[in-house]
C-alpha cells in the first residue's frame, strides 16, 4: 500500500489497526496530524438549526403576503384606470342641476333648445347624457315655465305629479300642498296618482291641499311671472303670501288674519311697497315693515 493510499484512508477515517501503525511510521505523520489538528480551529460558527428554522418560518410568513410581487404594479395600473374610469363615468352621468334663490329668476336652454324659465327658490335637474331623441326627463321642485321644442315626449317630474308634452309652452308650479299646471300652447297631459288630465291651450290644472279646483281659461301667452308679476285668480291668501316671501325674501307674520281667504289680483316683483299695497288694499289690511319681517294687521 503506497503512501497516498494510506493518507487517504486515514483522512477517510478508514484505517485498520495494522494500517494505522504503518501510517504512524510515515515521515509525514507528524506534520499531517499537526496540520489536521490546527485546521479544526477553523470550524464554522455553531449553527443553531432550530433557531434558524424558526427565523426562516417567520420570514416565510411575512414574504408570503407579498408573494405576488409581479402583481403589484399591475394592481396600481388597474387602480388608476378604475379611478379614471369611474370619475369619467361619474362626471358624464352626473345630473345637471340649476337652482334659484329667493328673489332670483333665471332662464336656461336645454340640450334640445327647449327653454326653461325658473322662478324664485326653485330647482330643476336633468341628465345631459340621457337627454336623447326618445326621452326628455326633467325634475322640478318649485315653479318653471317651459317652451318645449318639438320632439319626443317631454316629462316634467315633480313630487306632486308628472306633466308630459310633445311640443308646447306650459307653466308648472309645484309648492307645498300646491300644484298648478297652465298650458299656453299645444296639449299637455298631467298625470297625478294614475289619473291623467289633458290640458289644451289656455287650460289650467290646480290642486290645493289635495283638492282639484276648476279654473277659467287664460288668454295670455306666457305666465305673468316671466314679466315680474305674480297673478292669482281665487287663490288662498297663504299661497299668495308664500309667493310674496319667495319673491322678496321676507317673512310675513299674519297673526289673526284668516289666510284661507281667496285672493284674486297681482303683485309686482320690482317694488315691495307697491306689491304690498296691491295685496293689502283689496283685503283691507295694513302692513308694517320691520327689517325683513312684514306684519299684517286688520284695518
Amino acid at each position, binding site marked *: 500500500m503506497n503512501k*497516498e493510499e494510506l*493518507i*487517504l484512508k486515514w*483522512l*477517510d*477515517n*478508514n484505517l485498520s489497526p495494522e494500517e494505522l501503525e504503518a501510517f504512524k511510521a510515515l515521515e*509525514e505523520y507528524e*506534520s*499531517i496530524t*499537526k*496540520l*489536521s489538528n*490546527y*485546521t*479544526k*480551529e*477553523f*470550524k*464554522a*460558527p455553531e*449553527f443553531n*438549526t432550530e433557531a*434558524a*428554522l424558526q*427565523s*426562516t*418560518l417567520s*420570514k*416565510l410568513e411575512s*414574504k408570503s403576503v407579498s*408573494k405576488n410581487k409581479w402583481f403589484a404594479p399591475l394592481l396600481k395600473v388597474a387602480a388608476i384606470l378604475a379611478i379614471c374610469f369611474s370619475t369619467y363615468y361619474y362626471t358624464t352621468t352626473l345630473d345637471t342641476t340649476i337652482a334659484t334663490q329667493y328673489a332670483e329668476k333665471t332662464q336656461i336652454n336645454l340640450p334640445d333648445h327647449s327653454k326653461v324659465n325658473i322662478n324664485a327658490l326653485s330647482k330643476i335637474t336633468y341628465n345631459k347624457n340621457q337627454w336623447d331623441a326618445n326621452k326628455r326627463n326633467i325634475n322640478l321642485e318649485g315653479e318653471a315655465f317651459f317652451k318645449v321644442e318639438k320632439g319626443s315626449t317631454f316629462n316634467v317630474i315633480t313630487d306632486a305629479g308628472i306633466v308630459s308634452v310633445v311640443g308646447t309652452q306650459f307653466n308648472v308650479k309645484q309648492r307645498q300642498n300646491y300644484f298648478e299646471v297652465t298650458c299656453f300652447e299645444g296639449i299637455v297631459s298631467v298625470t297625478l296618482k294614475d289619473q291623467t288630465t289633458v290640458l289644451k291651450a289656455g287650460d289650467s290644472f290646480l290642486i290645493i291641499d289635495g283638492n282639484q279646483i276648476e279654473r277659467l281659461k287664460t288668454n295670455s301667452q306666457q305666465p305673468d311671472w316671466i314679466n315680474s308679476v305674480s297673478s292669482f285668480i281665487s287663490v288662498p291668501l297663504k299661497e299668495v303670501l308664500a309667493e310674496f316671501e319667495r319673491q322678496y325674501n321676507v317673512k310675513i307674520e299674519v297673526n289673526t288674519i284668516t289666510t284661507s281667504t281667496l285672493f284674486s289680483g297681482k303683485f309686482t316683483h320690482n317694488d315691495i311697497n307697491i306689491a304690498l299695497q296691491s295685496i293689502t288694499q283689496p283685503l283691507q289690511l295694513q302692513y308694517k315693515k320691520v327689517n325683513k319681517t312684514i306684519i299684517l294687521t286688520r284695518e
Partner: protein
Amino acid sequence: MSKNLHKDICDKSRFEALFKQHAKNLHDFLYYKFGDRLNPEDKAQEAFIKLWQNCEKVTPSKAKSFLFTIANNLMLNEVAHQKVVLKHQKTITSHHTNLSPEFLMEEDQYRQKLEKAISNLTEAQRVAFLMNRVEGKRFKEIASLLDISTKAVEKRIYGALKKLRQDIEEL
C-alpha cells in the same frame, strides 16, 4: 420509498424536515466556501425561502441540489471575489495554559500561515477538505452533498492537504 410518495414539498412539516436535514450542511458549505463575510446563515435561510416559494416545482429528491445551487448563486451574486476569511474558533485551544512563550509564538505563527494557506486553496478543495477535517465527514457523505464522485472528493482533499503542507513550508 416514502420520499417519493410526495410529489412536492408544499407542506410545512415536510419543509421543516428538509430544513433540519440540510440547513447545517448548507451553512457549513457556504462558510467553508465563501468565508464568514457574506453571512452564510442568512444565505442558507434565503435559499430555503426560495425553496418554499418554488415548492410546487421541486421534488424532495431534487431539494438538496436546489438548495445548494440557489445558495451558491446567492453568494456569487454578492461576491466581487472578496478574500475568504475564516475566523479562528480560539476557544478550542484555550485549555493549553502552561506553555512556554516561544511555543506560543510558534503556534501563533503556524496558525497565521495555515489561515493564509487555507484561503489560498481553491473553493472546491477548501470545502471538501474542511468538511472532512473539521466536520469529520466521510468521503462518501461529502460526495453526495456536493453531487460529485467519491474519487473526486479524494482528489480534492488530497490535493488540498498537499498544497497546504507545501504553502506552510514556504511561508
